[in-house]
């Protein structure tokens, strides 16, 4: 056990945990933010994706000690039902989720993609999203929703992943 200080969604958390605990379990079970999901535990499916300093990162294999000093953003830090991020709004407009379990990770990847490439091509989308498994098979809608988000002019202005 050790004192680990994490910055998650702009809030500081001082935790007394095993420094080798993957960030996923610190976020879910210690901090209590349940939107980030466990899918495989070996960075194969993308369900656990969060932003580390704005970049999509698999939290299930990332020891907490390696993220000290980094800014972590989870799905809860992207937007809320009352104040949706344009990507989340596009996900609703296109009715993307079925079970929805993988969608936090998918959205984190899409937010980062659009920050990097505000008008992504199909190839850009494929490249950014192919690390994410959706067993319900919503890939076609995810692609549409990313295009929709790219076109949207939201009050929030530009895509701001990892804010």
């Amino acid at each position: 056990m050790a004192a680990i200080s994490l910055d998650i969604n702009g809030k500081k958390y001082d935790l007394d945990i095993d420094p080798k605990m993957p960030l996923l379990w610190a976020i879910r079970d210690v901090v209590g933010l349940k939107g980030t999901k466990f899918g495989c535990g070996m960075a194969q499916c993308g369900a656990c994706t969060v932003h580390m300093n704005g970049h999509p990162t698999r939290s299930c294999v990332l020891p907490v000690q390696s993220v000290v000093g980094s800014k972590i953003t989870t799905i809860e830090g992207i937007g809320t039902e009352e104040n949706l991020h344009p990507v989340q709004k596009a996900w609703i407009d296109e009715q993307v989720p079925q079970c929805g379990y993988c969608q936090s990770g998918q959205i984190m990847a899409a937010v980062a993609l659009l920050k990097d490439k505000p008008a992504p091509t199909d190839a850009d989308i494929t490249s950014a999203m192919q690390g994410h498994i959706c067993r319900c098979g919503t890939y076609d809608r995810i692609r549409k929703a990313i295009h929709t988000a790219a076109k949207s002019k939201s009050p929030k202005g530009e895509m701001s992943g990892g804010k």
Partner: protein
Amino acid sequence: MSNRRTFLKTLGLSSASFVLGVSSFAKGNAVVNMSTDPMSLALEINPFIVIQPSGQITLINPRPDMGQGSTQAVPSLLAEELEVSLDQVTIAQSDGKGKYGDQTSGGSSSVRALWTPIRQAGAAAKEMLIKAAAQRWSVPESECYAEKAKVIHRLSGKSLTYGEVADDASKLEIPKNPKLKDPKDFKIIGKYAPRLDVPARVTGKAVYGIDVEVPGMVYAVMLHSPMIHGKVVSIDDSEALKIKGVQKVLKCERPMPHRTSEAVAIIADNYWAALSAKKVVKVQWDNGTLGQTLTTAAYFKKCAEAATKEGLKAEEEGDFAATFGAAAKKLEAVYETPFLAHAPMEPENAIAHIKDDGTAEVWAPIQGPDWALRDLAGYLKIKPEQIKINVALLGGAFGRKAYHDFLLEACFLSKDVKKPVKLVWTREDDITQGPYRPGMMARMQGAVDAKGNIVAYHHHPIGESIQFQVFKAPSNKPDDWVCGELSQKEQKYNIPAFKISYTHVPTEIPIVWWRSVYASNFGFSQEGFFDELAHAANKDPLKARLELMSDARFKKVLETLAEKSNWGEKLPAGQGKGIAIFKSFGSISACCVTVAKQGTGVKIEKVVSVIDCGHYVNPDNVKAQTEGNIVMGITAAVKKGITFTNGQSDPTNFHQYQVMRMNEMPKVEIHIVESGAEPGGVGEPGLPPIAPALANAVFAATGKRIRRLPFDLNTLASV
């Protein structure tokens, strides 16, 4: 009316755990004041509607949502007849108690099974509310109507909210034959509507089983036998117990329907500690002869032997042997489909709390709280009344979460440690432990006469049976789940000599239903082989089907597919199209796959699916489910399945058990045939035609016939 309070109590709407676990979609807190009066009708009808004097309306959804949209679909049936809109109500999940009837999401049954009874529940309630209002106003009921949770007096324009008349209405007699709406008057059913559960699912707020926490709980991970049925000889937990937070390592069990296996579990303060301990616990297993017997090669060898012999006859129209024997062209082939894991994105998990007073409470992502209640009562040897089930959202299931081994494991552990235990399987548990879709074989025979007519057809399914393994039905007759679905009556091929046989080949590899069940195995053999017969008859595969089918709905589906897929168009060199049609779960689905040669293999360019599911609730959800079926159907055809070598599953996680990803996604198009027929299923029927249409497209493009799944798209070889 006497059991109104019981009703609320068993619903658990006032318990904090219920709110934590299930009410993520509730607009506001789904807390019901026990002193208020819900409207109460007969147990068969009315447990589904709770109206409070405040006006709050709660609709009970008896079918857990695993992503198939039942959170919208079933309440829509109620709301349509009750005359409320879904944004005016709170939706709660049923808890397995008998008064809610069948509560298992499976067999694509939610809408088709509830189509009449749930609408009747809504209509009966509406009639009672109207009557209560009419009595209050002393006007005839015929002058009143209901709209948006109000009763309105047509002549005066005055109105009362449902809440204002709920108490009076609850004291009225329940109408025996409430009048259902004419479908042409539907405002909700059949219309596009965004699913109201989606915002919670894109903001991280939806509460899945794995997200539930209860006070005082401990975490558990399982250390299952690598060969599934191995026996525990010894456990060395010395290193594990040195890990901070690890409380206990114990021998336990994994209760499966067909047998209970031994297992080991680690209990810890937090999940990571338990996972860390799993890596250092040393268990010696006695695997007996499992290394030799528990292999898929040994199983398929037995299936192949069965394919050389006659099976049990399930059905015969005409004289197959005579027609086949006399025919000009005879075809014989063996088709094979692999074992598959469901691999829902949310691994199996459950919280169980077996209390000192002998009662039990569980929280879990399960497809059927009613089945779970039966299984829990049987396993714990207590009465159903002593069990409280809280169904959480399911992060995918596909059939897996109607098999309760993980739930009973959590019960065993809670009983031992006398605390609530939260058990979460790892992905490795999920992929290596089963239950799986059974791998199956099919022996096919068919014949074409001298005039080019397809005159004889014999489908002989071979393999393990869910009825026989899971439900222990006597296996001395053909499995009617398999043979009933493949019968001429269902699949509508008017071939003069039509025969279905069956051979059961048992295995100890655990199996269960997987999205579309046997249709995913035998849709492939039926439709792949029919393509072979059409080619043998020198006929266009689509026209050959139309020639043999007289059923108007099947024909319409095929004609729609021909039109939407431009079936007759001339394709560029190197491209090919294949089609397939299959009826399952009350719906007819067909698809056309287009492939293009690429190197030594093919690329899937496009899939056009057509479905006639009769009446449906939300066309967009029909499309979404069909899109999902395309993806899962292609995955099942071209990605490695589950193989067991030396008693163990070869794949262990997603790096080896691969599923289709976005880079492999073809263009897709879905078309719904508006037949207006009785509702059929939506969650599964789109899947069975995918693999055979793909294989038939490969044949059209390359001349290579695929009879064994999975195959590698890059080489067309079996993998």
